[in-house]
């Protein structure tokens, strides 16, 4: 009985360990992502997180931070994709409020394993009312190495820092 339970414990441990290792190894799975903005003068920033393929084309929209469609044309590259792409499910479920200057927001999304180490990137696109538009505020290569860093500084845009860790 005791042996059985030890065996059971061992099995559980192995399974969970392998699954953990798998996750880390593959790089795919659920992530939580913190977006910390700089202190700039102006309204809340609209931030769109998209998955981009190795050709630089939009694959899908992961998150939209900013819920007033009035302003979407201020993110022209993504907006063209949004208008073209009628097959993508509605944005309702992945849309949240814009982020104010100096504030932060945490979101979660899934990165499927198929996109890892294939030249895909995660693009953070930002825009602030009557201010500069940043098509590539922060870009994160979806490679296992890069994902294991977990922390990415923004330079030219409104984003100070992105943090990305598996859930």
């Amino acid at each position, binding site marked *: 009985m005791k042996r059985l339970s030890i065996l059971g414990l061992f099995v559980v441990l192995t399974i969970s360990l392998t699954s953990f290792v798998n996750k880390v190894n593959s790089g795919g799975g*659920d992530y*939580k992502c*913190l977006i910390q903005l700089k202190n700039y*003068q*102006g*309204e809340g920033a609209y931030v769109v997180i998209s998955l981009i393929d190795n050709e630089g084309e939009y694959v899908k929209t992961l998150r939209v931070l900013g*819920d*007033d469609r*009035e302003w979407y044309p201020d993110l022209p590259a993504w907006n063209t994709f949004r208008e073209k792409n009628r097959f993508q499910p509605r944005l*309702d*479920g992945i849309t*949240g409020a814009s982020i104010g200057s100096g504030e*932060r927001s*945490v*979101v*979660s999304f899934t990165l499927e394993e198929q996109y890892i180490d294939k030249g895909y990137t995660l693009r953070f696109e930002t825009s602030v*009312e*009557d201010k500069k538009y940043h098509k590539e505020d922060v870009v994160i290569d979806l490679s296992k190495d890069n994902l294991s860093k977990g922390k990415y500084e923004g330079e030219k845009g409104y984003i100070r820092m992105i*943090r990305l*860790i598996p*859930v």
Partner: protein
Amino acid sequence: MASSFWRYSHLILALLSSVFLFIAAATGIILSAEPVIQQAQSPAEKAALDTLTLSDLIPKLKNEYIEVFSVEVEKEGAVKVDVIGFDEETDGAFYIHPATAKKSAEIEPKSDFFEWVTALHRSLFMHNSGRIIMGITVFLLLLMATSGIALVIKSTNGLKHIFTRLKKHNEAQYFHTVLGRWSFIPIMVMAFGGTIMFLDTQGLLEKEVPSSSVKESNNKNIFEDILLSEVVTLNFPFSSDETDFFELELHDKNLKIHQYTNSVVSDTPKSNTEQLVNLSETLHTGRGQFIWAIILGLISINLIYFMYSGTKIAWNRISSKTRNKFGAEDAEIIILVGSENGSTKKFALQLFKALISKGNTVFVDEMNAYQAYPKAKHLLVLTSTYGDGEAPFKARKFLDKVNEISQPNTLSTYVIGFGSMSYPQFCQYAIDVHEALANNRQFDLFAPPFLIDKQSFTSFKLAIDEWAKQHKISIDLPNEEDHPSQEKSNFEIVRKEIVDDGYSTTFTLSLKPLNHNKFQAGDLLAIAPPEEEHVRYYSMGKTHDGNILLSIKKHDLGKCSTYLFKQELGDKIRGIIKINKSFHLPKNNDVILIANGTGIAPFLGMNSMYTNQKKTFYLGGRTKDGFKLYHHLIQENSSKEQFNTLHFAISKEESECKYVQDLIRKHKHEVLEHLKNKGSIMICGSLKMRDGVLEELKQCVSNSNLKIENLIEKGKIKMDCY
């Protein structure tokens, strides 16, 4: 500062902002509904917020969900979380019950309609340029409210009297001022909030960076001390790394809290600017304060009314400006106007037209523009009185100029004052002008100043006709209200009685309406003699069989009275009945009815109305015979078990009381009791009698807290005098 400064800035600001202000107000009405709806729909559990602390909530959240990102307590009192849950249903952002941390409701997506209206309200769909326009508009509103209240203070003679009863002479003006007084403070608050929000979006507010203080670790669990109602947002540490903290925003400060010890690591108070912007947002939008939101909606409706009534007031003022055909050097008749809001000017304009059309050379100007008039013979001064017996703004320099400037000719002068008897200083400025001119040799005063109550055109016409007759000036002053559209009705003479008391001839006519006309005693009958357009108004009594009773004094030169005098039984005349609500018998409480001469007419008929009411008559006439005409009517009424009391004053015969005013003096205790018991007084007859009676009434109430002006204003004293 002068009221003209305030008035012009008020008008110019209104013009500048009109279109945008209209859009802002109209959308503002709609948007004020949003906080009310939000409040109604919000899954708020306010009571729980005041009892639960963060240390109650946080462990429950951690149990309930895989990962918690943030907790937000909305202004309406609902608790919102952003989490990763164990299933689809409890994943993402939604509302929770604060006591259990379980999901209570979905977050409704923002209404497209309100979003659309908000964008229009905030920026006219023009992004930042629109924001600037609307920002300036709201700032102009702030200035407009200021200039508006300055005007009110000016015209009520100082801040102390700001809420004194306003006299109602012009509906638009009255409500503009009344609503202005009440909505001033909310408008200021709302406009101030809007201005701050605008400055904030433009980055024009100075943002001092508050210094944060680093706290020594004291291992105190801060969450135990913080009620949910104090929380704005709580961001959970992003990772289990010790350098990731709880970030807690309270209403007045931001805290960083150690995620293992729950002790405060750093404390940053919110800057004053930040708090001001937060407050401004609440004040301007009403978010989370639905009662205030309702007030905001009401003042938005108010703003639209202000635009309407303000336009009307401005239009009145502009339309009463006139163009002279003759210069000041050429005119024989000079009309000078002292008008505060243009209504007096309207009279001057009509007078001007009536004189010009008959070939007179007339020049109209405001009193301040007084100068030498080389060819002038006649001077007419039409002036209102401002505030507490002062000169209206456009007449302030008049008396000084009169002393400085000498006239080539002596001017035959007549002063006509406009005012409201409900002011204690009724027409005081006109009286002052009259006295000043009477003491100046350059002026030959025609008669005592003629004082007109509540812009009565009938009185004005009477005064002007008399003046024109005396000076043999031909004039054709039209009646104010000819109703060409209104059908004339036919009336048959069914009774005629004549009394000659040796001084004048008075007669009564009973008219049977042949068309179905509704009327009551106190209404007016407009009659024009044949081949004449212009009507005369007669106060009507009503006989017990429902006929009209007119009481008319025959003037030898009076066309209309001569025409009516010629009518015999069975003859038919045409006329228009004009309802005159301001002289209807009050339904409630007792009434004293005072009349002299033919002024008794409207009272005949009133005496048989509302039988439960005690009526006391004070009647004046020249001779006892004069009352013969009415005797049978009075008799008829007393035979119906009504206890109407009658008192007579006879002026030309031996009598204890000569005039009705004497009767009032004699019965002053009864009159005072009557007024104290909320009784009414109705006065009909000559202006002279009216003034005498009002003087006596003032004496009656002098030792009580009643004021005659207030009684007139409240309609407790009604007058129909000529």
